[in-house]
């Protein structure tokens, strides 16, 4: 069983092939890349399309176990494949929390049964995400975790975070911090600023994020440890990270499409689909996030895909849950908002959405198209113009503020582990 991809314009983070290549895939691996190949049982011609290493989303919520009414590993995997993601890291704020080997193994088993995307569970930093006691990190690593996070919550206790960094470094796990000092945050429902005053909604002051960014930079510096900052939303956070990197501190960071496309103006209609944590900020912050992606201060783009049911999102703004889905719109938004305006090159897009995540998480055979690498590939039609429609989402939930938006650039085929796991219906192409 082999697959031949013909006329591929291969885009790697460090190089774009000048001439289209043929890619031969055998047994889940890229067997050969050459200008003209003629073997293979299945042949797909991708003339005019870009072929990227399979995209990697370091930050999704698959909701299983516990909230299968919002999303399951199966529906989330389908959404990931449609969005071009061949690897996703799923966050541990499930019920029960992913804080022991049994749950990690159960998720991996279910994900393999489905086989549409590579699911890597992120374990919790503290048991039950309660911020009190460290998880059994060695055991989590053995079970298959590559990273830990208490996502949804900050590890507020600074001493405990210090211990977590020391222990995770020893075990060889990445720590991902959800940066939001809980007392300063005070369960604000939108960005604190002119618009929260106007709307009479409780604001989250950006300092809730930046004090934790600053604290963790100091911890990482002191302990010579790594830290990865989740979903950065502010200009000030970017400045702190840029400074830390200039000092050689081992900090990496991610940003979400909604934080480089939307501002808190989107909340003005009380649209709960625009309620997200960290909240949508200001135009100044949006520009800073874009600049930080361009200059490398922010290493990668993640979705923070957070499915919620329609019933929950129909609650009032104070009570509706935080979060929006993102797997199926990330590529379109990144191309439309960053690549077409010239903020990122195609190669940089690959860096942000595949190569950097692979490097940060430690996936040696992913994030690049080369002979011997895993056969995960995302094929993109850079010219395709499409409209985000509620009825087209594969995700079980439809909570997207981008419904109705027209985007340019779309995933047409996703290849995971040497197999086509998603292909846009031929009639639509």
């Amino acid at each position, binding site marked *: 069983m082999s697959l031949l991809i013909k006329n591929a314009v291969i885009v790697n983070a460090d190089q774009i092939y000048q001439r289209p290549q043929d890619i031969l895939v055998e047994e889940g691996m890229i067997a050969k890349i050459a200008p003209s190949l003629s073997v293979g049982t299945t042949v797909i011609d991708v003339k005019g399309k870009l072929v990227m290493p399979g995209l990697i989303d370091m930050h999704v919520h698959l909701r299983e176990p516990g909230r299968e009414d919002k999303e399951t590993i199966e529906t989330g995997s389908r959404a990931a494949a449609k969005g071009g993601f061949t690897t996703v890291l799923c966050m541990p704020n499930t019920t029960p929390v992913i804080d022991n080997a049994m749950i990690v193994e159960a998720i991996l088993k279910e994900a393999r049964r489905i086989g549409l995307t590579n699911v890597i569970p992120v374990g919790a930093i503290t048991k039950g995400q309660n911020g009190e006691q460290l998880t059994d990190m060695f055991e989590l690593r053995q079970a298959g975790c590559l990273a830990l996070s208490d996502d949804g919550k900050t590890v507020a206790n600074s001493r405990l975070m210090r211990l977590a960094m020391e222990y995770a470094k020893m075990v060889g796990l990445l720590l991902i911090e959800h940066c939001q000092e809980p007392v300063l945050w005070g369960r604000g429902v939108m960005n*604190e*600023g*002119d618009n*929260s*005053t*106007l*709307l*009479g*909604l*409780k*604001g989250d002051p950006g300092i809730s994020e930046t004090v934790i960014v600053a604290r963790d930079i100091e911890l990482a510096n002191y302990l010579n440890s790594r830290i990865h900052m989740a979903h950065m939303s502010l200009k000030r956070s970017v400045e702190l990270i840029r400074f830390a990197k200039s000092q050689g501190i081992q900090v990496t960071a991610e940003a979400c499409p909604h934080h480089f496309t939307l501002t808190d103006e989107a909340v003005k*209609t*009380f649209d709960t689909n625009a309620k997200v944590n960290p909240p949508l900020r200001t135009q100044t912050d949006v520009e800073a996030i874009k600049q930080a992606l361009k200059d490398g201060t922010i290493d990668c783009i993640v979705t923070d895909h957070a499915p919620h049911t329609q*019933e929950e999102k*129909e*609650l*009032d*703004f*104070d*009570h509706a849950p935080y979060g929006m889905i993102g797997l199926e719109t990330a590529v379109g938004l990144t191309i439309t908002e960053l690549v077409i305006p010239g903020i990122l090159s195609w190669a940089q897009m690959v860096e942000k959405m595949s190569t950097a995540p692979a490097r940060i998480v430690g996936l040696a055979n992913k994030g690049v198209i080369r002979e011997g690498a895993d056969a995960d590939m995302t094929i993109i039609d850079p010219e395709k113009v499409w409209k985000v429609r509620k009825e087209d989402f594969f995700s079980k939930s439809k909570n997207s503020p981008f419904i109705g938006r027209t985007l340019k650039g779309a995933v047409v085929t996703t290849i995971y582990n040497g197999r086509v796991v998603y292909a846009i219906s031929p009639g639509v192409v």
Partner: protein
Amino acid sequence: MAEWTHKDLLDVQNLKREEIELVLETAKSFREVSARDVKKVPALRGKTVVMLFSENSTRTRTSFELAAKRLSADTINISANSSSIAKGETVLDTARNLEAMNIDAIVIRHPSSGVPDVLARHLKASIINAGDGCRAHPTQALLDLFTIKEKLGRIAGLNVGIVGDILHSRVARSNIWALTRLGARVTVSGPATLMPIGIERLGAYVSYDMDEIVRESDILMLLRLQMERQEDKFLPSIREYAKQFGVNRERLKQAKKDILIMHPGPTNRGVELSAEVADGEYSVILDQVTNGVAVRMAVLYLLLGAKK
């Protein structure tokens, strides 16, 4: 005179100057109805108005209910305890069910900002905001305008001081919109910890010099200080608040001779104002309550009656 074109009353922010004046003019004619022996006109006969109150309120709910009844509308009360979220039903769902029973208007009070807007978007019935979260209380602002105009004959050019917990006050926000739109100059004051970021963008000035505000204001609007704010650590103490921002007879000695003291109620006597000021010659607090009925009659009439 302006035409009334709105289906709903959500905030004064989206009312034009002429539309505000139309409400005030209409209220003037309805004020007289409440002074009659038979306090009823048939303007809204056959209309059904639902009071959906998910937050405690005596004054506003009674005022709206009287307003609707004096216009001959049928009214129904639904209060927080008997409805919605506790049972897992969203407000929108509750409202959809009410609309299915062919009601004409929903007067809604809700602790979360924006709920009236969401209902207005989804329903054909008229939605009247009777206070949502910290965001808007349009009929309170309109009745305040009515009272000022009645007492002083004008609004343009007046200095209005609004003092208290501005951060959590929907009355302050709606009054800033309403007063500035009609040409008044609004200065807000209160503890810095209860002053929201960017309040100047709404058109207000900020000052912490209470004596200066007392000296320069034509109208002082004092807001109720919620005792919980001290527990939330916004304030060192209620005593300190009363000392710095409270209005008593002594402090009023420096005020203009025809200053109006207003308060949306209920008052905390001894905190934001002393009893003698609340009951004194400058106070128009009870006139506000009286005018509230007339203004709400005007709003109900413009939304439900005038169009046919």
